[in-house]
């Protein structure tokens, strides 16, 4: 499937292959917590099937869902930027199959091979800008009355 942010398109073939050699196949049952806000971001995933919810804990409201991620998408980018701490929490909504990557290994490879490092940085950066832009648009509350696409 084509996408500007999925790993299949977001990375040049050569670098994608190198990254995929570091992948570990994992699966999670529905309801599994993958990471928590404020904890060390020591790994990341590319989702193959299933849905993962990103959330923030709000006292009295529990986990407020920010966004859902599905097939082909990068789960987690905090591992790429210091201080390597998760900004959100994540949990599996449905059974999830994913490729898991160890953050330190990938960062080390990035440091050793600047061309690979640039590709990874560009890919992660594109995912982040994409999600930022989507969040900005959602801030507009476009579908509310008067901001909506209704006629009159």
């Amino acid at each position, binding site marked *: 499937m084509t996408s500007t942010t999925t790993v299949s398109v977001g990375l040049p073939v050569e670098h994608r292959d190198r990254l995929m050699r570091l992948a570990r196949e994992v699966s999670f049952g529905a309801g599994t917590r993958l990471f928590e806000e404020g904890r060390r971001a020591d790994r990341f995933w590319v989702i193959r099937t299933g849905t993962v919810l990103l959330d923030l804990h709000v006292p009295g409201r529990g986990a407020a869902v920010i966004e859902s991620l599905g097939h082909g998408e990068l789960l987690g980018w905090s591992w790429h930027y210091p201080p390597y701490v998760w900004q959100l929490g994540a949990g599996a909504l449905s059974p999830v199959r994913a490729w898991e990557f160890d953050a330190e290994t990938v960062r080390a490879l990035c440091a050793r091979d600047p061309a690979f490092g640039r590709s990874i940085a560009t890919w992660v950066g594109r995912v982040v800008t994409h999600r930022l832009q989507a969040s900005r648009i959602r801030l507009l509350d476009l579908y509310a009355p008067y901001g909506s696409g209704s*006629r*009159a």
Partner: protein
Amino acid sequence: MSDVPVPHLVTGMRRETADTVSLTLTPAGQEALEPFAPGQFAMVYAFGVGEIPVSVSRVGRRELVHTIRSVGAVSAALCALRPGSQVGLRGPFGTGWELERAAGQDIVAVTGGIGLAPLRPLVLAARAAHRAYGRLNLLVGSRTFEDLLYADQVRAWAESHGPLLCRATVDRPSPGWWGHVGLVTTLLNSARFVPENTTAYVCGPEVMIRATARDLLHRGVRADRIRVSLERNMRCATGHCGHCQLGGVLMCRDGPVIGWDRAASLLMVREL
């Protein structure tokens, strides 16, 4: 041609959300309008209040369904109608989605908010004749679960394994929400289509249309095969009142559905 509104009886009223209803309208007398194509609109007349353009959200044999959100005087009056009341209708007006031009291609319909209403007849038509097309995708964006139009139908589509791949997403999830969370464009990742052989149909607020069309274009869908439904002030629907101009486009005549190849540059200019 209808110079004056043709009386129609409200034969059905369904509350879709807190501020949106669907009216089923059947000709009150002998006179009926010409058949509507998906994407076309009618001028709906509320007696003593005025007229507004509303796209058809379902086309039956004799009856038409219009889904109307109460945001102004006329739409509020229409939303307050009950079965047995009458409204006037003129139409059909404007360009339709022109589904027939997508024969043999994958179809991606992307909707935001009430933009699902004008696309529903297209989805129904494509689904009914799905062998004429490639893969069918419907991506639905809504503010909340409570604001989702045709929620039961959308859920049934989303859970079925039929010819239509349907995904829905909301900006803010509430308890019981069964779909995705996020902007509708993110659903494109899970849609099944070959961009080079795809026709896309986009309907929703202009910002959502711009973001979606840009994403589709980037993925490789041809600009002229991204069909968007735009909105401008419409008074007459017959090309005479001048209100609905967007550059050289008279929206009631040349639109509301136009290709992104034409729309892109027009939407780039502020206050055009």
